[in-house]
């Protein structure tokens, strides 16, 4: 069974039970966002929700870890620019 979701506004498909990063790799994408400071592409790195390299905007929510999020039907995934700062770790 395939699931339909949108990636940067485009409708795409992936098998059921795929994480967002898994779906992107499955679809042949190698990067998931660009960085805030140098606009460098980033991708899956730790794969277990620790490094925060894979942050994406998902269903309108900023800075969601794509590696620990399962694709749901109709999900809106946006690669865009992700500052990896969020509320975490204010000094």
């Amino acid at each position, binding site marked *: 069974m395939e699931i339909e979701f949108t990636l940067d506004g485009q409708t795409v498909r992936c*098998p*059921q*039970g*795929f*994480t967002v*990063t*898994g779906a992107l*790799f*499955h679809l042949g994408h*190698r*990067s*998931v966002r660009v*960085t*805030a*400071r*140098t606009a*460098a*592409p*980033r*991708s*899956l*790195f*730790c*794969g*277990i*929700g*620790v*490094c*925060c*390299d894979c*942050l994406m905007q998902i269903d309108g*929510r*900023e*800075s*969601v*870890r794509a*590696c*620990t999020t*399962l694709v749901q039907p109709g999900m809106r995934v946006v690669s865009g620019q992700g500052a*990896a*700062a*969020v*509320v*975490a*770790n*204010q*000094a």
Partner: protein
Amino acid sequence: MSHSAIVIIGGGPAGMSAAVAAATQGLSCTIIDEGFALGGQIYRKPTNPERAPAPHPRGEQLRAEVAKLAQQIQVRNGDNVWGIFDELRVAVTSPDQHTELLQPQAVILAPGAHELVPPFPGWTLPGVMTPGAAQTLIKTMGVAPGKRVLLAGTGPFLLAVACQLVDTGVHVVAVLEASSRPAWLSLPLHGFRTPKILAEGLAYLNKLDRAHVPVRYGRIVVAAQGETELNAVEHAPVDAEWFPDNNRIETEQVDTLLVGYGFVPRVQLAQMAGCNLELRPDVGGWIPVRDRNLATSVAGIFAAGDGAGVAGSLVAALEGQLAGMAAARFLGAIDEATFTAARDPIEQELVRLKPLRRALDKISALQPGLMSLVRDDTIVCRCEEVTWREARAAVDAGSTTYRSLKMTSRAGMGACQGRFCWPFLSRLVAAEAKCSLADIGPPSARPPLGPITLGALAPQAQDK
């Protein structure tokens, strides 16, 4: 939601074993794990079983043991623990952003570890990732991390992942093991009473040999190349301290580099709870101080598994059992005699596993040459994109602690809270400032741990 006597953070071998041990003594437990299912890293359960390889039988068995005790054990998967506060209050947020403050009578920390990657030129390029990240793609969904893959780092985990890649049909170009072949051959095979583990290692080597995957000892990756993604890797032979010979660099065209030099315990929750930490580089860095019964310095908080010192899944399961029993005794569910009778065989087993583990740790111990790969413009903090030039300027101006370096250079300030950069950045700082790792300290841990949104924090956390 019902109150549990014990909250267990982490549902890997340590957390599941702890729950089974405590629940068997009649105690109610809640296991919280942000993963999609119980299993932790090693026993990760497929999320797409049609495409993924069959799950590890030992993991299936542990999940079944937990399921059998469903009366006592509540499982919360997908929920994230982002803080522990005074008097064992555990802050947890569900994927729908609902936040709760649990207040158990005992807490068992079993959060496991994450991988250890040194900074080197090009290490932020898409296509460079940890062996565990690649393994996770395969184990859960059967997705290949790339087409031509090189693995580099140290330790048997690299061999295990290389075999999984081969099984998935990925072209593994080579495995580069930093330590020398003589160092590995010096493992006194007959000195250990753990033949099964050694047989596993040999089976990996045989499999790679049959698949024509060369395992090259005494080599490390010195740089990754590519514009918007990885397309080549430079590697070089090293001396005993892992300093590369830059005159003998070889370049390999690959789209994926998996690099891992071991594991780092996830100690942030222990830190937030006020548990004393100690520096133990031999088991991955900073770990909570524990007594013989795995109790931390905070009454009612126990710590088990890789999150309390990296020692692998067998030790994690045994420690989980011990922590579960220790928590049961702490809560008065069992008496001293019952506890000691349970502890003795667990301790004997732990002692039996120790020599091999020690020998492996020694062979894979980080060497200073690994810290020589950074150049001025190499990023040392991935989140905030801080270069070594910037961080070093801050160090030279006197910022030698996590806190001060973060304030002056932003290194360690990002979403991962220094978890990924600090294990190496602290070593670079120590070398630059000529001080000890212990002086520099661990990154301070502040709630919320992980990228929790303001929305999840805003509705006042409720006592339940």
